[in-house]
């Protein structure tokens, strides 16, 4: 989605090539649809997301309530639209935050020989923690708010990006034109941005898509364990966590948000796969 608009200089027609692959096209179409639904939530949604109606709690799906109502009589369809906003925003924010940390660490490790060892060891140390465990510990430490969940997941996923960026940087650093630029005395930051950063866009884009997918799953997992975003903010994860208690009386409370997660994550993976095949020739040969 938003990731697609990032300019990729060596593949100007990436979007049309992506659309040429049926699976990626489907994935992309789903993502656009979900993103539109999220953005237009206030227009599409039939109710206010926080409107309580105790009298009509746990109503099954009907014409009035497409996906039924929840334990406080709120419209599940409406809340799913608003949840899409938070879930996608959280996922996207995690990608952005992880990218910033990952790029900075990766560039530093890859470009400056002296920093390589310490930064790489830090990355190794971070990677040693299983992601959910580290996220749980971090969220517990920072407090269970949406912003802290983003920060925690960003920290969890940043090392993966840092590794990718470092590896690419190591290769690019040795390229003749980069060496030439250094010899000409062009300041390092400019070299970093102009040459290196441009060239690592593709792997970041590919990794970013998968991190997006993982972040949505991880947020749901944290919410399910009760250590994630406050349940008063609708995300698909928090909706499942609450819906679980009513699995039998009101299966819709849990089923619809769960399906939304599966579909979104699947779509992201389809797109990510397509991107990888197109942008990363090393892995593209299975096409």
């Amino acid at each position: 989605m938003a990731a697609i608009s990032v300019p990729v200089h060596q593949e100007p027609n990436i979007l049309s090539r992506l659309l040429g692959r049926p699976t990626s096209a489907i994935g992309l179409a789903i993502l656009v649809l979900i993103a539109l639904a999220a953005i237009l939530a206030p227009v599409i949604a039939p109710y206010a997301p926080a409107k309580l109606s105790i009298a009509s709690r746990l109503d099954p799906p009907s014409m009035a309530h497409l996906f039924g109502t929840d334990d406080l009589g709120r419209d599940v369809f409406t809340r799913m639209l608003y949840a899409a906003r938070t879930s996608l925003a959280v996922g996207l924010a995690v990608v952005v935050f992880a990218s910033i940390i990952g790029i900075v660490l990766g560039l530093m490790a890859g470009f400056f020989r002296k920093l390589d060892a310490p930064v790489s060891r830090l990355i190794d140390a971070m990677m040693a923690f299983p992601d959910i465990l580290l996220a749980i510990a971090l969220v517990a430490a920072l407090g269970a708010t949406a912003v802290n969940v983003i920060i925690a997941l960003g920290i969890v996923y940043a090392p993966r990006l840092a590794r990718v960026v470092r590896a690419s940087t190591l290769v690019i650093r040795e390229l003749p034109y980069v060496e030439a630029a250094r010899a000409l005395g062009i300041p390092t930051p400019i070299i970093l941005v102009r040459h290196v950063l441009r060239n690592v866009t593709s792997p970041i884009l590919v990794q970013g898509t998968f991190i997006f997918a993982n972040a949505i799953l991880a947020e749901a997992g944290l919410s399910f364990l009760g250590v994630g975003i406050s349940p008063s903010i609708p995300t698909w994860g928090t909706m499942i966590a609450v819906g679980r208690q009513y699995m039998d009386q009101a299966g819709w409370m849990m089923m619809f948000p769960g399906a939304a997660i599966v579909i979104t994550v699947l779509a992201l993976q389809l797109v990510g796969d397509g991107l990888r095949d197109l942008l990363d020739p090393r892995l593209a040969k299975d096409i």
Partner: protein
Amino acid sequence: MRRLLQMAAVVAALLPAFASAEPQKGGVIDVATVGEPPTLDPMASTADLVGIVTQHIFETLYTFGKDWAITPLLAADLPQISDDGLTYTIPLRTGIKFHDGSDMDSADVVASLQRWMKVATRGKQAAEVVASIEAPDANSVKITLKTPYAPLQSLLAFNNAAAIIIPSENAGEDPMTKFIGTGPYMLKDRKPDQFIQLVRFDGYKPLEGESNFYGGARKQYLDEIRFVPVPDPNTRVEGAVAGQFAYADALPVESYDKISGGKTKPVILKPFGWPVFVMNTKEGLNSDIRIRKAIQAALAPSDMLTAAFGSQDFFAVDASMYPEGFAWHNAAGTDAYKPDGDTEAAAALLKEAGYDGSKPLRILTSRQYEFHYKMAQVAQAYLEQAGFKVQLDVVEWATLTKNRTDPKLWDIYITHSPFLPEPSLNGFMSDTTPGWWATDAKHKAVEAFNKESDPAKRAKLYEAVQQAIYDEAPIFKIGDFNALAAQSPELKGVTPAPWPYFWNAYLEK
């Protein structure tokens, strides 16, 4: 009251038919509990779970019989109280053995009570009025008070932060490492987060006669009782439906129908307890009584209870601090309780208090108990209607228990309690518990109540306490709610109780 009778009929149907076959000895039961108890030292914690498990291992001098009347357990009789209400002489039963085979005598009791006053939260409460504890002879103890204090017997009988009797040589231990009591079951093995295994204590000497709720004869039919921590309520429900446990405690009431369709039968304890909004009277918005009165008017208990518990079968909109059936039930001050809320009155009170909507009312709650959080959400909607700006601080229980001790961090926190047999056991009756309600009106009412020992007069004096609660709104009682448990059809002899116990229980072959 009719509903109560109906319930009693249901309960009676679940009870063993005593006329028929004598219960058989033997069998092992698994009991699903809400989690792993933080300790097995019942003095060291006020958590209900600790009381539920350890009441099988340890015993107190007194306990509660039918209608919550104090009845002797390790004591031979009720205490002899001097006319000035200052001296309690407690005769002890003889021939009582500890799980290690030693005999209980007055030295053990004195050492245990000393430890209780040092270690236990409720013991420290008692320590404030106790002048001395002595043993005139091997089979009695004498407690001397500084001032008459009627709740003492209830404190001695209560099963959390409990005044248990342990061998004097273990009384110096803190934390406790030897779990040696006099109870009908003894600790065999404990694997944290897996099980607590209790086995029958063959040296147990039950009281003569019939059983009488927590008191009377305690029969040891079962060979083994295992408490299995299942912290997730949904997992407890699934386990109950699948018949994995002989008894599953503290289930969400709305899973009643689901339990009914499963392999274990639902058991309702009605009424079980009361959810409460505790106001911070010390600092912040709620230090202004007019704000508190506005909250009192704004909240709509009926909707809050419906959201939390679903059907009226599981809750009652009830303003009295104690429901019908308790001696403490009365109607004093209850006009202030509006089942559907009175938004206009609340708005007017807010205006009078000069509240401009800039400072948020901070509600501290957790999802440890899902119904707390649901009530918080409905409360938020009603408070906002009345003009409040509301901030829900949803934290983990561990954080809540810490944050509520800091008056700077919250305006309201949400909790609940079973109906405690003695009103003075409730936290807000003391000035130092979070909420810090300490006014002249309160002190006047509570002191009169604590000094009086005649039960009938105390019930009358309690009306003044309840009046003060409604006048000054230091807490807001939402209503009454019921508890749901599930019990295997083979398991008999379990009396529904807020802290379920399994002596007297047996398996029908």
